[in-house]
């Protein structure tokens, strides 16, 4: 143990120490940014959140007002997007996992993966071209379709991954009992993967609930309460955007408060999902 370290060895040790600390530093930095953002939202938002703010519709500057219509609007849009996008997304996932061995499936898998990376604003332009232009006005249904299109690839891929986790012995057992394949899939495979599929679905909802770009020229936004699908509708994200770029301090404060509400919704979904998946795997 008396051999002295050579110069080169000492250098290697120093490099090792520097680089391994650098990686830790990177991690601390990223987590710090996350905490700073969350803390700032909470600090700025908490002052303006009260029951009236949550229930009222927007008022002109100086008269208070709230985000009640935007909360309902986001709810309507998410519901519509879920109804339209979820069945398609889950079906695509089932196709890819249960029938997806051929060349066609490889193409579909590739396109679905690539589709998740398409900017949401392009989806907005597309929906504008195929729905808003023919109908000649902005509408909640156009916004719902745009969000559904964003949802489909996300749901499809998580569904495929979750169904793949179902052991083959289950399928074989059911088939051996004489059940046709559709019944094996619907009655055995999907129930076995149900919680995983639900997890993916909820994450997709969380993801699109934060979308703004595809809504600006589809659902457009509104300052009134609306439940109608053929009229423009408000949403939390568009409201935050409009208030953020306005010149009024009061609206800035409302933007922070609306952000706090939106983040609460998204974090709630994420935490619930994490809690359930932790148990499972």
């Amino acid at each position, binding site marked *: 143990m008396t051999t002295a370290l050579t110069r080169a060895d000492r250098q290697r040790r120093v490099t090792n120490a520097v680089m391994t600390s650098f990686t830790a530093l990177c991690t601390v930095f990223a987590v710090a940014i996350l905490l700073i953002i969350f803390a700032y939202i909470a600090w700025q938002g908490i002052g303006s959140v009260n029951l009236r703010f949550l229930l009222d519709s927007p008022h002109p500057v100086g008269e208070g007002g709230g985000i009640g219509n935007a909360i309902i609007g986001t709810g309507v849009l998410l519901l519509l997007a879920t109804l339209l996008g979820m069945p398609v997304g889950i*079906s695509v996932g*089932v196709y890819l996992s249960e029938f997806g061995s051929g060349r066609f499936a490889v193409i579909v898998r590739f396109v679905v*993966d690539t589709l998740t990376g398409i900017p949401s604003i392009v989806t907005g*332009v597309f929906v504008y071209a195929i729905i808003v232009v023919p109908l000649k006005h902005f509408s909640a249904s156009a916004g719902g379709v745009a969000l559904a299109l964003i949802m489909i690839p996300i749901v499809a891929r998580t569904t495929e991954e979750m169904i793949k986790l179902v052991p083959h012995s289950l399928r074989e057992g059911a088939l051996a009992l004489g*059940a046709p394949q*559709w019944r094996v899939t619907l009655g055995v495979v999907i129930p076995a993967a149900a919680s995983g599929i639900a997890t993916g679905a909820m994450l997709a909802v969380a*993801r699109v609930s934060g979308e703004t770009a595809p809504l600006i020229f589809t659902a457009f936004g509104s300052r009134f309460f609306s439940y109608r699908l053929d009229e423009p509708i408000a949403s939390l*994200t568009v409201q935050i955007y409009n208030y953020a770029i306005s010149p009024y301090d009061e609206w800035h404060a409302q933007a922070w408060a609306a952000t706090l509400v939106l*983040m609460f919704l998204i974090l709630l979904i994420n935490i619930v999902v994490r809690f359930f998946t932790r148990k499972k795997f």
Partner: protein
Amino acid sequence: MPNSSSRTANALASPWRIALSPTGNTGDAFFRGLMFSAALLVLIIVGAMILALAMKSKLSIAQFGFSFLTSRQWNPVKGEFGALPFIYGTVVSSAIALLIAVPLSLGIAVFLVEQAPYYIARPITSLVELLAAIPSVVYGLWGIFVLAPFLRVHVEPHFARWFGWLPLFQGSVTGIGLLTGGIILAIMVTPIITAVIRDVLAAVPDSQREAAFALGATKWETIRIVLVNGAPGIAGAIMLGLGRALGETMAVTMVIGNRPEISASLFAPSYTIASVIANEFTEATQDLYLSSLVELGLILFLVTFIVNGIARLLVWNVTRKSGATA
């Protein structure tokens, strides 16, 4: 899945038990056809996207042709539409984002996979993923009121003082511009790049690490070998981040300044393809104006589709291979 066998029994018991007919083939064909048509629908949607965007941008393509991509003039009043300022803004802001995000993500991923013990890696992984859950518009809000003022007061003046001889850091310091847009983008793409690199590193077989340690390599030297092994996948991760950065809209729109000019300075306001669509789409009353904006959308779609496609192929290559041996 401990309770799956009881679930199977339940599932088969009702309501699917009504008729266990041996002629399940019609049902199978129908079910298969239904799932197939959903898969086909995805391809149709992509085809329809390309078709609809191409048709709506026909006017602008016919009018400007290839010069649309090289013209610096964007003047709706005069009916002049050139995309170069937006292409420049998009490329430069994404480049800044990657310059910051790639080393950062590599560091985080290496720390999580190679260094941190499980009980640290697990919660940190969740926290970093939460960065990806923050909506774009929230990053934008934070960018306007926190990041931009911070950069204006504490960062940009120092850059101007020390590196002011470079054209990159000249001009007035406002906090709103390319640099701020790039930094916001960096924060937004970091969790995505990190997550993919993490998967790629985890897919590198342990035998590589053991061999390196056995030869007397230090921790860092071992990590370098792992990184080399995962290089194609890491390249894919970076491409994925690039695809996201190119198309990111709201946060950038809120901090980049939205001026269709090309300036050498990173402090200067700029404009990205996604931002101009977001800002001007509802104002575009003339057909040519709208058509030009849709053509920008078409360009963005094609570029991000190609970038994401390459990224997926790179990542698939790495993670699939290890999946086969595992």
